């Protein structure tokens, strides 16, 4: 799918993607301990802003949803609400081992193990916890992906919503996010592009 779309890119899309990749605003969801690595990443020592990456406050303004650490079932609900409130194109970045396979909470009964079953994860930053160098390197590869037009995981949420919804329903009951994701996908022309 991704390759087909890549070949369809017009010159305008390429220009736009190369401009967009210079500005990425990040909403960090800091329930885990990994958040402690973010301040050095943002401030004088590593200065994330030189890549145009800035922390933002509300989901509406953000492009990147950075999940810094483990998610319990209860916090996952909030994360899903926040993700659905974000404005596409949006990228979920799993930060630390906890988001990948539960990390040190691998046998906990309320901590979800693989984030990509509930949300379309664009990229994982492995490590417990990843150091600022790793974060910067990870974001740089995300920037490259966006520039090449390969960062399209957010479309997957619209296309395979049944999959995500099934997994979400498996860990908690129905939640009211006031979003009809497939309808949104049709309204904004994200689903038609495929069919």
């Amino acid at each position, binding site marked *: 799918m991704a390759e087909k779309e890549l070949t369809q890119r017009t010159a305008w899309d390429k220009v736009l993607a190369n401009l967009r990749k210079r500005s990425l605003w990040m909403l960090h969801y800091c329930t885990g301990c990994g958040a402690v690595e973010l301040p050095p990443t943002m401030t004088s020592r590593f200065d994330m802003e030189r890549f145009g990456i800035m922390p933002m406050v509300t989901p509406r303004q953000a492009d990147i949803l950075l999940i810094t650490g483990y998610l319990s*079932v*209860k916090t996952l609900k909030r994360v899903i609400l926040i993700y659905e409130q974000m404005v596409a194109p949006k990228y979920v970045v799993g930060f630390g081992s906890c988001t*990948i*396979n*539960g990390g040190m909470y*691998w*046998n*906990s*009964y*309320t*901590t*979800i*193990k*693989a984030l*990509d*079953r509930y949300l379309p994860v664009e990229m994982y930053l492995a490590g417990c916890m990843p150091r600022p160098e790793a974060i910067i390197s990870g974001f740089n590869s995300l920037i490259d992906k966006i520039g090449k037009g390969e960062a399209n995981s957010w479309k997957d949420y619209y296309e395979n919503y049944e999959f995500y919804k099934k*997994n979400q329903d*498996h*860990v*908690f*009951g129905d939640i009211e996010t006031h979003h009809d994701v497939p309808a949104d996908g049709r309204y904004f022309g994200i689903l038609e592009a495929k069919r």
Partner: protein
Amino acid sequence: MNAQTQAPTTSRPPAATGAPRMTEALVSAITAETGIATFRTKSPRRIEGTVQADALHSFAAALRSRVGFEHLSAISCVDWIAEGEFELVYHFWSYRDSHLVSARVRIPREPGSMATITDLWLPASFFERDIHEFYGVVFQGNTDLERYILSDWKGPPPMRKDFSSRDFAHEHFTFKDYEPTWDELIDGGYHGQKRQGEGSDE
């Protein structure tokens, strides 16, 4: 609410005897006032004893109104699975004497039922709700035993000893087939060997 906050002040011992009592004096006072004689000193400021499940409510009431233990610190629970019992530990604190009384109550695991003390201390509801959620103990008379922390929990009470968190996690959540290849660079890698030995579905 009002009555509860006022009750200790009205039943507080007179000011003349306001000086803190010695631990031994306290133990004998508790024994005398409540009629329960199994209390002993555990450490200089800590008194501990066992109370029968049906006597706890009257014990707590007497402790509060007569001996001045106005504060319920906590209720905790231990699952003695081999003995088929839950042990509830009630911690009472006296501000005047700076002493802690821990009253141990044993109840059978099945049906795991206990009388509430929310009529004496409204905040006890918080602990009872917690214990109900994590151990499945039912507190008779407590009207608010809703889910508290595990709002979407479907499994058995998770702090019981017969609940296996690992089994539950493996049953309930899906793990990623995480097979890193970087360790092969070092010495063939643990995962690589495992892969060769077991074979893969894909």
